[in-house]
């Protein structure tokens, strides 16, 4: 049975609302905004924030070229908002000059990160005109011919995050090139495919001419290329876009031969082609020139993974927001959750990735594609790699994975997120990357010791997916990034992360190379990522901290403390120092009150 070990009181701190003493409030309300280098004040104004949780709050809003900052002037319910303008999806005027009712005149802001903000202003004198225009301008700089904040930021970090991913180094880590796979620079000036990276790994036997021919038969020239190779069995994950079969059922011998080269490389008897789409969608794509691999592909088997398209995912997340914001649906919560289908989509993506990983780990090479190969394909390949390759489960390895599978292979971040773009109803927008990060979170939940990084990293990534503070997620593909000199003119998110990486580390991480992680893709285990989707709700927030992690850190500190004391005692245990020591040890040991004071700083608030 456990003998007593002292506890240290925990003080949950939050980042959203924090109480401040009256004295400090009397001073400048906004004195404690620390601006980023390059961030500039644009306007400040008295305003009423209509908080969905605590009601209307008087305060001051402060807008810079990077963020909207609000602080309530009421000391009893001190609420603070710190919203990067990049998060704003839509700004609308609410009510008119003649609207009746309290706080009916103001602004309604829809955010990309599962919340809405409402502000009310005085009705007289068009008081909202300037703030509306400023918000509209700075939240959607691209639509106004302005620069995204990433280009204005003057932030400096110890480490240059742009160096985290070097394609050649990553290929070398995987043991490439080898006698079956070569590195091709055919796309060095984006001539073969303008949405692919410059460096590609292709079958050794395929000539540059072959690649060009294959490119004509693959949507947008996104030919099958190697993304990952299994060190032992040499099975590969190749990714591409759909073949351009069309209504007439065109064939392309080069494409067929090329896929057979992929199969042949490790002697796979049957190449499995995973088409991420539902069967019907793949058929429907024929009407627009696309399609899927038919029987003409010998030694290949096509499997549909039934994952829906970007539009379905967008609507699903929208429904989810409806049931969690501002208030969590109370009655029949589970049925409501089910009706959003969000977790069901997560399940489909995960189980697709499990099938890919399972095939590859049993020695079978696979090809993964959807329509264009930049949404569902990226989800599947990167999740399968996360299951197969423990390197990607480290803090830096995960960054490499994102840089490689998502950024370099042209997931259309700009279109999917709509950075700086006012067109909130754009049908190209979709939370595909959010869905992927959710899948990663589900995996970290199921395997809490297998990942070197923690939930905080995932939250940070999602926050900066929208913030436009870093260049990492800007633009649709590498060619556009080159054109806009992203790597020269902006800071990488990984600069921030790797310069203070200890806060992103999982203390329970136990490295186990070579172990394949298969999450359980059953609704029994999938759960809503409350600390992301419902994080704005103050009722939920308390659940966020991990008491397990806190306890572990306290115990670690206690162990170090005891070890040190033991050492000291042993050193000074000579007869001459007995007296002096007996007194100290009697007062400080094992009285828990002493260490509890010393260790309060150990609580890491989330």
């Amino acid at each position, binding site marked *: *049975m*456990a003998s*007593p070990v*002292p506890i*240290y009181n*925990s003080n*949950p701190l939050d980042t959203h609302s924090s109480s401040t003493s009256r004295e400090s409030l009397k001073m400048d309300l906004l004195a404690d905004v620390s601006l980023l280098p390059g961030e500039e004040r644009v306007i400040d104004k008295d305003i009423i924030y209509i908080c969905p949780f605590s009601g209307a709050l008087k305060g001051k809003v402060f807008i810079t070229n990077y963020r909207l900052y609000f602080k309530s002037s009421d000391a009893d319910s001190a609420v603070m908002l710190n919203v990067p303008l990049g998060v704003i999806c839509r700004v609308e005027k609410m009510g008119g000059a003649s609207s009746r009712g309290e706080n009916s005149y103001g602004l309604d802001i829809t955010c990309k990160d599962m919340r809405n903000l409402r502000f009310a202003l005085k009705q007289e004198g068009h008081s909202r005109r300037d703030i509306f225009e400023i918000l509209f301008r700075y939240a959607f700089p691209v639509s106004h011919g302005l620069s995204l904040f990433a280009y204005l930021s003057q932030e400096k970090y110890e480490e240059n995050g742009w160096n985290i991913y070097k394609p050649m180094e990553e290929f070398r880590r995987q043991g490439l090139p080898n006698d079956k796979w070569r590195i091709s620079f055919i796309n060095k000036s984006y001539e073969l495919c303008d949405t692919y990276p410059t460096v590609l790994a292709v079958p050794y036997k395929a000539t540059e001419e072959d690649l060009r021919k294959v490119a004509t038969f693959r*949507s947008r020239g996104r030919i099958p290329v190697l993304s990952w190779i299994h060190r032992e069995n040499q099975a590969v994950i190749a990714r591409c876009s759909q073949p351009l079969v069309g209504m007439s059922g065109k064939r392309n011998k080069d494409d067929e031969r090329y896929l057979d080269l992929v199969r042949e490389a490790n002697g796979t008897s049957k190449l499995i082609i995973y088409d991420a789409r539902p069967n019907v*969608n793949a058929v*429907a794509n024929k009407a627009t*020139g696309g399609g899927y691999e038919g029987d003409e592909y010998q030694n290949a088997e096509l499997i549909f993974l*039934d994952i*829906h*398209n*970007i*539009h*379905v995912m967008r609507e*699903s997340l929208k429904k989810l927001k409806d049931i969690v914001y501002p208030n969590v649906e*109370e009655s029949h*919560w*589970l*049925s409501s959750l*089910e009706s959003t*289908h969000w977790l*069901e989509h997560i*399940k489909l993506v995960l*189980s697709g990735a499990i*099938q890919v990983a*399972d095939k590859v*780990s049993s020695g079978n090479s696979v090809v993964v594609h*959807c*329509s*264009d190969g930049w949404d569902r394909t990226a989800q599947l390949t990167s999740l399968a790699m996360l299951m197969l390759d423990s390197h990607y489960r480290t803090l830096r390895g995960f960054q490499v994975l994102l840089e490689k599978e998502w950024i370099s292979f042209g997931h259309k971040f700009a279109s999917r997120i709509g950075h700086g773009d006012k067109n909130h109803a754009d049908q190209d927008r979709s939370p595909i990357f959010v869905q992927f990060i959710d899948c990663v979170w589900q995996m970290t939940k199921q*395997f*809490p*010791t*297998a990942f070197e990084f923690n939930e905080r990293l995932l939250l940070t990534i999602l926050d900066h997916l929208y913030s436009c503070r870093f260049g990492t997620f800007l633009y649709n593909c590498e060619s556009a990034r080159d054109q806009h000199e992203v790597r020269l003119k902006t800071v990488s998110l990984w600069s921030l992360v790797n310069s203070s990486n200890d806060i992103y580390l999982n203390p329970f991480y*136990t490295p*186990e190379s070579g172990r394949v*992680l298969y*999450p*359980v893709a*059953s*609704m*029994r285990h999938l759960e809503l990522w409350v600390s992301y989707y419902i994080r704005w709700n*103050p009722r*939920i927030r308390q659940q966020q901290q991990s*008491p*397990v992690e806190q*306890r*572990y850190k*306290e115990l670690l500190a206690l*162990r170090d403390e*005891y070890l040190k004391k033991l050492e000291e005692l042993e050193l000074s245990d*000579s007869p001459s120092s007995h007296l002096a020591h*007996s007194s100290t*040890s009697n007062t400080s*040991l*094992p009285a828990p*009150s002493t260490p509890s004071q010393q260790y309060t700083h150990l609580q890491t608030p989330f």
Partner: protein
Amino acid sequence: MLSLGSGGGKSAKPSFVSYVTPEEINSEKDTPKEEKHPDLLPGEVVFCSASTVLKLTQDELSQRGTFGTLLCTNFRVSFISDEETGEETAPLFKNKLYGENDIPLSCVDNIYGGYEDKRKLVTGSQVKNKYPSKIIIHCKDLRVFQFALTFCKEEDAKRIFQGIVHHCLEPKSLKNIFAFSFCENTAFPEMQMQQRTMMFDSAEDWAQDLKRTKGSCRLVTENANFGLSPNLPQYFIVPESVSEADMTLFQGKGLPIWCWSHHSGCALFKTSNLPLQQEDNVPQSYMEKMLTAVAHNYLYSVKTEDLSDTLPTVQDIQLSYSKFKQFFFIDSTTDFWVSDMKWFSSLDNCGWLDIIRQCLQKAMEVVECLEKENNNVLIMEDGGSDLCCVISSLAQLMLDSYYRTLQGFQSLVQKEWVAGGHNFLDRCNQLHLKDKENVSPVFLLFLECVWQLLQQYGPAFQFSETYLTVLSDSIHVPVFSTFLFNSQHHRASILRQADSSHSQRGTLNCPTVWDWSVQFDCKAQQLFINPLYAEKPKLDKSMRRPHRPKHQRQLSLPSATFKTPPKKGFFKDETDSLKKILRVKRISRWMLSPDSPQPSSTSREFYEAWQRKPLDYHGLLLPCLDGPAVRIWMQRYLRWIQEVQIFGGGLVTVLSKVSDLLDEVQELQRQLDRHSSSLTSNHQRPRPRPISAETDSRLSVLLSSSFPFTTLKNNWSYKPAIPTGLLQSLMNSGNLADTEDDDQESLVRA
């Protein structure tokens, strides 16, 4: 394991297609000895047995299984495999009374007969001559067993089937319950624990609990021999002003029984409702008198709550649970994935989580009255020993951190449930009565609520999830006196009878469930301790008592911190007008419809005010009842289902790391203590060895999310579970799905 091929063969019964050739059966039959017995417990007798029974693995489609002998004893249904299991290392978490292939008789939930491809629920009566080709047993601990009888001799098959059905389903008398023959033949040493669980079967225990909470009520000892009423506990506590005459008036009904005192002085009482209004005014005036007595306890305030009106009935609870549990009896992989699709809505529809939520909500309202308003609370209910027990014990768990220790929790169960007269025998149907009207998993419901608190505030509890799961299993192990009786009076009268018939042996001594050494060795009991729990730092060492922790009231929130003004019309101020006191307040503020409880805005406020404060695990705890916060007790319900086991994963991988570190820290602490106590220089202290990373990681790989209930054999497969039949439910997710694929328009352009 014998894997059966697809080769057809002749079988004993023409209706069954055997997958085993007769040769295979013969070769199997040569080896096993005729009579195989488990290691029988003292007092255990074998009723019948059959050899060459095939125990099928979970997936019925695979037709794989193990041959062995199936027995039925007066304690269990037991399957003994023909395969040698000698080399198998002893599992870490082994129950000493029954093994993984044993089903205690009272743990059997339902028996199904498998006839060709149909299955029928066996109710007992239709078992004359027919016997099924397969016996499927669903257990109350959620295990599922399938035994194929097609390879045994016909008369063996008939006998074992009838035997199992008879002993598991037919009503029996209490004295035929295994506990009695077991206890007659076993001597249990006195429970040896440093900290004793208070049994509340003595005046001292009650006096001590009253003293601990600084309550000022009256301990009644006159019922020690049930002279006042058999419906009342042997010892109990009532408000000061209740007279002895009051106690006997309605056989104890309507009498407010003290549960717990708040540090402010107000207290929680429970009572059973008086019989329905009679012509004379006696019950009415009696009730008023009792309310006055409660009100007198502190500041002339009392709030009453009739739980019969505001919470689901015991029948509702039973109905909901019987739907709920079905989701966990998985017969095949196909079954599993089909049910996965509508998982959330199925859970929702059976209402079980909602009942849990309602109980926690109600308990929170009681807590609010005590903590924030400092009112005396009287909860009542028809019998006074079902939902009263749930709500009063939940409220005490939230308010008093003593009850969140292992011994404190056990004492709480003793106080509110065992001494409180919960009808365990009837509610758990230990006698297999056909009339199920009284059957209801009320105690399990309480454990479910405790689990919710535990998963929300892990560090506040000294006991672990595993402890709760094991406790819930133990209800159906017919050995413990804890769950065998309907009341203290019932227990006393039964034991007296038993004693008189076995007088030569002295008093019959059934162990209580708290004597965990009956079921588990020390090592396994370690898993009952929650590594996240840290004892409250004791600020003043001189105050430290050797035994029970002190009541930690000073840590609950002082009521002054709540800003809400006291309710209007509240009779706190009226100190002398008895008439006003009789205007009793009801707590109940919400009851829109039974399935959609909308917590009142004030109790929301209460939660939110509490939640804004720093969380003190040794102070007041309030559950979060928002949708996502109330969850499924995964360990209990999913532990046997293979498809959901996360190999090398689950929270246990993290908890085991905390446990290891805790051990290390405790070892260091002992060394330091030794150092400071014995100052004689002794340099031969072994250096603490840090836990080697190797063993550590190996452990975490072998753990699974079902730990410690399913142990992974050496050959656990890396094969992932791949969901099947995914598409159906999503097919109608709107026209978006099939209209166009992403980026169609641009594709056309390209």
